[in-house]
C-alpha cells in the first residue's frame, strides 16, 4: 500500500519537477538555477520516500516528502496564470515550515518539547496567514514575485498596495527574523544538551539546518538593512547547498543505521571467532552500536547481583541517571543488562538485534563474569585471611612477651630470691635444684623470645622493614649485603616483604651452602620490590608444603608476584607487592 502510494507520489514529484523547471525557464531564470531548485525538491522527495519506506511508523518520511513536493510546487507561483499563482502563492511557503518541522522532528518524527512545538505551529500560521492576507489585498496587476509580468490574485477583495508591502515586510521580519532566530537557538540548545553519542549522530543534520537558518535570517537583513543585489547569486547557491545537504544528512543518518545493522552481522562473526570474555563482548557491542560508553552487566542468579565486566558487583543505573537499560533474558530469566546512551533508544531494533546476536556469547561471557566474580571474592578472602593471620601472629607475639615471659621471669626472680634467702644454710641439694630451676626458666624465656621473633618481630612493628631486615642479617652466619629503602609502608606489605626475606635467608643458611648473599628492597610506583640473591648451589623451589610455597601464597594473596630463579650458580628470589590495599 505504502509502496504504491510512494510510486504515485514519486511520479507526482517528477511531473512537478518538470513543470517547475519549465515555469522558471519561461521566466528567464537561468537554466542552472532552475535545475538546482528542482534538484533540491527531488532530494527532499527521495529522502522522504526512503525514510517512509524504511520506517513507515515514523512521520519524518511523509514530512520530508511533503516538504519536497511543496518546494517543487512553490516554483509554479512564478507564472502569469492566475489560478496557479493564487494557489501556490498561498501554499508555496509551506515548504519552509515543513523543512523546519522535519528538522525539529528528527529523528523520532515527533516534535518534543513545548517550545519546538510552539515554533512549528507559529511557522505554519505565518506561512499560510500572511500570503492569504496579501492575496486578499493584492488588487494591482503588478508582480508579487519580482517577475516582469502581471500576477492576478483570484482571492482579491480590496486593493491596498501599501498594506501588501507592509504585510510582506512583516512576514519577512516574523518568519526570517523572529522564528528563524528561535529555531537556531533551539537547535544549538539541542546540540549542547545531547549525549555524546546523540551529538555525533545529530551533528551533520543540525549543522546543515543551522546553515540554512542563517541563510534565512540573512533574508531579513537584505529586506531591512541593505539590499545588496550583487550578493544574490551567492545567497542563492548557499541556499541550494544547505537545502541539498539537509536531505543528504538525513539519508546519511538512515544509511548509518543500516551500516550499524551490517555491523551486527559482523558482530556475530567476530563473536564466533574471538573468545567471548565479558570485556571483549562489551567492546564489540560498544563498537557495533557506536557507543563507547556502553556497559554490560551480567546477572548472577546465585547471589542475585549484577557484576560488571571486571567481575565487581555493580548496580544498574537509576532511571534518572541519563542512561538507557535493555534487559536480555533467556527463558524469562535475566542474563545480562546493556546500559547505553539513551540516544540509541531511537533505534530500539538496533539494540535488540545486537543483543540477540550476542545472546549466545553473552551466556558464555556471563559464565566468565561469574568466574571472575568468584575469583575476586576468593582473592579478597585470601587477603583477609593473610591479614587476619598477621594480626593473630602479632597478638600472640605481644601476649608471649607481656604474659608468659614476664611471669616466668618473675618466677625465676622469686626462686633466686629464695635461694639467696636460704644462703649457706641451705641443703646443697635444694640449692642445686633452685639454681637449676632458675636456669631452666631463663632458657625457657630465651626460647619464647626466639619463638615470638619468628612470629612477628617487634622491631618490624616499631621500626619498619629496614630495621627488621638489619636485625635479621645480624643473626645470619652468611654475610649479607643490605640495600633497603627507608620509608614506612602499610604493615601488611612490610610484614610480607619481611617474611619473604626471612624465609629466603633461612633457605640460604640451611640449604644453599652460600658464601654470601644480598637483600635489596625498593619502593617504586606503588610497589615494594624485594630481591634476595645468594651464590649457593641452588635447588630452591616452591612446592610441596615448603616454606617458600607459603611465602609465595602470601605474596599472591596481596595481589603481588613471586618468583624463584635457582641454578647451580645461585638463587634469586624476588617478590613484588602492591602497596595500596
Amino acid at each position, binding site marked *: 500500500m505504502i509502496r504504491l502510494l510512494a510510486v504515485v507520489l514519486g511520479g507526482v514529484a517528477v511531473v512537478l519537477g518538470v513543470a517547475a523547471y519549465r515555469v522558471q525557464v519561461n521566466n528567464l531564470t537561468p537554466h542552472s538555477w532552475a535545475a538546482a531548485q528542482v534538484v533540491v525538491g527531488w532530494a527532499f522527495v527521495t529522502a522522504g520516500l526512503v525514510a517512509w519506506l524504511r520506517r513507515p511508523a515514523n512521520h519524518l518520511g511523509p514530512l520530508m516528502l511533503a516538504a519536497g513536493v511543496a518546494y517543487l510546487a512553490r516554483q509554479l507561483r512564478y507564472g502569469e496564470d492566475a489560478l496557479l499563482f493564487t494557489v501556490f502563492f498561498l501554499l508555496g511557503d509551506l515548504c519552509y515550515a515543513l523543512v523546519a518541522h522535519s528538522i525539529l522532528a528528527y529523528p523520532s518524527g515527533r516534535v518534543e518539547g513545548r517550545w519546538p512545538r510552539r515554533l512549528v505551529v507559529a511557522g505554519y500560521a505565518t506561512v499560510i496567514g500572511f500570503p492569504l492576507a496579501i492575496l486578499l489585498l493584492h488588487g494591482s496587476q503588478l508582480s508579487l514575485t519580482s517577475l516582469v509580468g502581471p500576477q492576478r490574485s483570484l482571492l482579491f477583495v480590496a486593493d491596498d498596495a501599501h498594506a501588501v508591502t507592509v504585510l510582506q515586510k512583516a512576514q519577512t521580519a516574523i518568519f526570517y527574523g523572529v522564528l528563524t532566530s528561535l529555531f537556531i537557538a533551539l537547535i544549538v540548545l539541542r546540540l549542547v544538551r545531547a549525549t555524546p553519542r546523540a551529538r555525533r549522530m545529530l551533528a551533520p543534520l543540525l549543522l546543515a539546518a543551522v546553515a540554512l537558518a542563517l541563510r534565512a535570517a540573512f533574508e531579513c537583513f537584505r529586506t531591512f538593512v541593505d539590499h545588496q543585489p550583487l550578493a544574490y547569486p551567492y545567497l542563492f547557491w548557499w541556499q541550494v547547498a544547505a537545502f541539498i545537504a539537509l536531505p543528504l544528512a538525513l539519508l546519511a543518518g538512515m544509511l548509518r543505521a543500516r551500516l550499524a545493522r551490517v555491523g551486527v552481522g559482523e558482530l556475530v562473526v567476530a563473536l564466533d571467532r574471538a573468545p567471548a570474555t565479558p570485556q571483549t563482548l562489551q567492546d564489540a557491542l560498544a563498537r557495533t552500536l557506536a557507543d563507547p560508553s556502553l556497559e554490560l552487566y551480567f546477572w548472577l542468579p546465585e547471589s542475585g547481583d549484577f557484576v560488571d565486566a571486571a567481575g565487581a558487583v555493580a548496580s544498574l543505573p537509576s532511571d534518572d541517571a541519563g542512561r538507557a537499560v535493555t534487559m536480555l533474558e533467556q527463558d524469562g530469566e535475566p542474563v545480562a543488562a546493556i546500559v547505553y546512551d539513551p540516544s540509541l533508544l531511537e533505534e530500539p531494533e538496533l539494540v535488540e538485534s545486537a543483543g540477540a546476536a550476542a545472546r549466545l556469547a553473552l551466556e558464555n561471557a556471563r559464565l566468565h563474569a561469574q568466574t571472575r566474580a568468584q575469583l575476586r571474592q576468593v582473592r579478597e578472602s585470601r587477603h583477609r585471611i593473610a591479614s587476619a593471620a598477621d594480626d593473630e601472629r602479632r597478638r600472640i607475639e*605481644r601476649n608471649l*612477651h*607481656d604474659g608468659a*615471659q*614476664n*611471669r616466668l*621471669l*618473675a*618466677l*625465676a*626472680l*622469686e626462686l*633466686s*630470691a629464695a635461694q*639467696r634467702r636460704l644462703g649457706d644454710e641451705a641443703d646443697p641439694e635444694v640449692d642445686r635444684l633452685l639454681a637449676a630451676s*632458675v636456669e631452666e626458666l*631463663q632458657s625457657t*624465656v*630465651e626460647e619464647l*623470645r626466639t619463638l*615470638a*621473633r619468628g612470629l612477628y*618481630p*617487634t*622491631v618490624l*612493628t*616499631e*621500626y619498619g622493614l629496614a*630495621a627488621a631486615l*638489619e*636485625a635479621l*642479617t*645480624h*643473626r*645470619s*652466619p*652468611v*654475610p*649479607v649485603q643490605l640495600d633497603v629503602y627507608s620509608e614506612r609502608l602499610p604493615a601488611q606489605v612490610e610484614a610480607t616483604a619481611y617474611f619473604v626475606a626471612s624465609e629466603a635467608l633461612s633457605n640460604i643458611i640451611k640449604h644453599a651452602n652460600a658464601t*654470601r648473599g644480598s637483600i635489596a628492597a625498593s619502593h617504586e610506583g606503588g610497589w615494594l620490590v624485594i630481591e634476595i640473591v645468594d651464590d649457593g648451589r641452588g635447588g630452591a623451589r616452591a612446592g610441596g608444603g615448603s616454606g617458600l610455597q607459603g611465602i609465595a601464597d602470601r605474596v599472591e594473596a596481596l595481589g603481588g608476584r613471586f618468583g624463584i630463579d635457582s641454578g647451580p650458580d645461585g638463587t634469586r628470589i624476588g617478590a613484588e607487592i602492591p602497596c595500596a590495599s
Partner: protein
Amino acid sequence: MRVVIADDSPLLREGVAHVLAENGMEVVAQVGNPEALLRAVVELKPDLAVIDVRMPPTQTDEGARAAVEIRARDPEVALLLLSQVVEAQYALTLLSDHPHGFGYLLKDRVLAIDDFIQSVQRVAAGGTAIDPDVVSQLLGRRREHDPLDELTVREREILGLMAEGRSNRGICQQLFLSPKTVESHVHNIFGKLGITAAADDHRRVLAVLTYLRA
C-alpha cells in the same frame, strides 16, 4: 641511691624492687604506666629510673618515649631501659640521643644479680650499659673482608666488653687482667680497627657500637 621502677607487670616489678633493695638501693616508687612514671620522677627526683620499654596503653614503646621525655625535662636522672627484646638499631638510636647515664638491657639480666647490680650502679654513676645480646648481634654479624678477623680472641672479648659500656677497670675485674694489659689491648684494638680513641667511657661505647653497626 633512690630508684623508681616502671613496669606494668606487678610480679616482675616486685621482683626487681626486691633485688635492688637487697643490694642497698632505695626503691622510692613502683609504677605501672608512663604517666605515673613521669609524675613520680617529678615528685621524687630519683637518681635512677628503671623502665620497661613496653607499657600500656599500646604495649609498644611507651616506656622508651617516657624515657626520652624524662631526659629532656630532667637530664640528671639516669635511665635503665629493660625490654623483652633488644635490637641494635634501637640501642643506637637511644644511645646517640642520651650518651650519659643510660642503660638498655634484656629483662633476663635481672637474674644474673651481680652483673645486673653492676650495670645499675654504672648507669646511675653516669656510665653506660648495653646488653651483651646487642653487642653479640653486632660482633657476630658476618661481613666480607671483616676487619674483626684481624683481632685476637682476647681482643674481641675486650671489644665486646667495651661495647657493653664497661670501663677499663671493669674489664680488668671481669677478665682478671692488669690495667696495663687491658690498656695495651684497647690500644691495639683501636689501632687495628682505625677507631679514634674517645675521651670518656660512654663516648667510647658509642664509637665502638657505631663502628660495629656500620
